[in-house]
């Protein structure tokens, strides 16, 4: 038994080492390759700053939208009975598998000027594609299913008796959700938020097709990297390193903020 304990620990170390190697080595190589002086210069260029601004606004908006609409949806789903649940789960899995470029296409088909829904919208004088809203929409389309699916499972895991206790104390469904279910899932939800945000920064295919690549409007840092890659790979690396740095700072800031908010609790 003590022997198996050693084995397990060794296995754990091995696995962790493998993963660490796999992740750190490429990152390290990337940083080595990049050139700090150039990065600084890039950071100062208007174009880069514009892309950064678009990236941050759209990612934050999308993350917010995914939370606002996804949390209640996930809650509703986690309260479904078995049969409905499986249907909805399968439905949510459909968009997960779409390559992003196809996702972008599907979005164009639906919301483009000649799209099913787009025709209705443009009759009202609204046009979604090639606007900042389109970037946000694309991010939601690609990431919301993942978020909802996972969050529903989280809500499933919450001890049902606690929710019952809340109801018996007079809490309506919203109060119970807000003050019992949500806070019980706080830590995984924060992790989820960070990940949705980071992923939304890195999205590419759906965004370029549906929203285009218009500087100051829909051109995100990721698209800028892609452009740079087309014309000058060196710049792409520099931009990527910048992206890495910015998002790291953001995540750290977010963490600190959250920790201060709840007074270092738990």
């Amino acid at each position, binding site marked *: 038994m003590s022997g198996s304990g050693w084995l397990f620990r060794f296995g754990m170390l091995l696995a962790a080492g493998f993963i660490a190697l796999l992740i750190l080595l490429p990152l390290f190589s990337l940083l080595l390759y990049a050139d700090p002086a150039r990065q600084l210069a890039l950071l100062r260029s208007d174009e880069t700053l514009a892309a950064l601004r678009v990236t941050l606004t759209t990612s934050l908006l999308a993350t917010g939208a995914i939370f606002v609409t996804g949390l209640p949806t996930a809650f509703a789903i986690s309260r479904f009975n078995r049969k409905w649940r499986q249907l909805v789960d399968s439905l949510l899995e459909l968009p997960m598998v779409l390559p992003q470029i196809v996702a972008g296409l599907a979005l164009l088909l639906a919301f483009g000027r000649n799209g099913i829904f787009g025709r209705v919208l443009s009759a009202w004088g609204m046009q979604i594609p090639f606007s900042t809203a389109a970037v946000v929409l694309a991010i939601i389309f690609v990431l919301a299913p993942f978020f909802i699916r996972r969050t529903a499972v989280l809500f499933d895991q919450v*001890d049902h*008796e*606690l929710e*019952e*206790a*809340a*109801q*018996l*104390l*007079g*809490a*309506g*469904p919203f*109060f*119970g959700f807000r*003050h*019992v279910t949500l*806070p*019980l899932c*706080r830590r995984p939800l924060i992790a989820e938020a960070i990940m949705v945000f980071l992923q939304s920064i890195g999205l590419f295919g759906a965004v370029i097709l549906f929203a285009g690549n218009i500087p100051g409007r829909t051109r995100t840092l990721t698209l800028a990297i892609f452009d740079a890659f087309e014309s000058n790979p060196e710049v792409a690396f520099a931009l990527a390193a910048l992206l890495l740095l910015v998002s790291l700072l953001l995540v750290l800031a977010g963490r600190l903020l959250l920790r201060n908010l709840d007074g270092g609790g*738990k």
Partner: protein
Amino acid sequence: MSGFRLDIAFRRPHLALDVLLEIPPGLTLLLGPNGAGKTTLLRLLAGLEKPDDGTITSNDRTLFDAARGICLPPSQRRIGLLFQHLALFPHLDVRDNIGFGLRAQGIGKVERERSIAAIVARFALEPHIDKPVAALSGGERQKVALARTLAARPDVLLLDEPTATLDQENRWRFRAWLAEILAEWKVPTLMVTHDPADAASFRKRIVVLEGGRICQRGSFHQLLHAPATPFVADFAGVNFISGTIGTDNGATIFTSAAGTRLQAPFELSRSGPACLTVLPWEIALYRELPEGSPRNVVEGTVRDAIVLGDRVRVTLLGREKLVAEISLRGYQAMGQPGRGATLFAAFKAREARVENV
């Protein structure tokens, strides 16, 4: 018509409940063996499970009516349920746990703080008010759960074994306090318990649930003197022997299921299946078979002998299980017979009571 009435049926493969019960303001105790369906009954009343049939009314408010299709959600039933496993909110500290119900009901901060303070003081929880519940001891948690339930000012109170993990002092405090609260509020309260001390302190209204049905209701005194089932007898600490009344050579006699023949006053009973009860303090114990005695005598070996103050409670196992309570002095005079010793239990025919079943 004030109080709480229910008449419900609930059928599942593992349990069939069929209960008609009225809970007047004040305390009603619910007894029953492990697995009798007590917790399930409370959950049905609270709206956490749905009865298959029947009605539940609380102070003239219909909470449930299968025929009329009424089924209020738990949050609108105004029922306070203390869970057997407490279900404290692990993400909140003691103060917020207690204040949860008030907050859920939209009660303002000032009034809320006042109510919380009052309840916290009553339960002597001040030193713990800012702790997360995970940092509390078992008994402290129980107290917080109780405080939380009561703080929400329910119309009906359902308590699932509230005293189980309290220490003796806190149990007494809790009982005194509950009696006080109920005298003040007159809330119908149903309390599940396994502690005979609870039954002894709240002895007016007791309901016994066995196998999903109410098998006896009455005061503790009634239970003590006419236990309807072995469980009740055991709970009340009364000896209970099932058997039949028959005649042998013209004389009436009670024969237990195990074959022991016993005398009793048979004036009020007929032949047929019956049960015989005898109180523990009516039984005398002897080392040797008491000779020439007109009494019923049963032989057995000591399972345990526990000292309760100046008395000793001896449990004998033999053909019948008998509990006798004798004085400590008498026990010591016998030489303190311990586990495994053989003793003879004797009781007069007129101390026994038989009842047809």
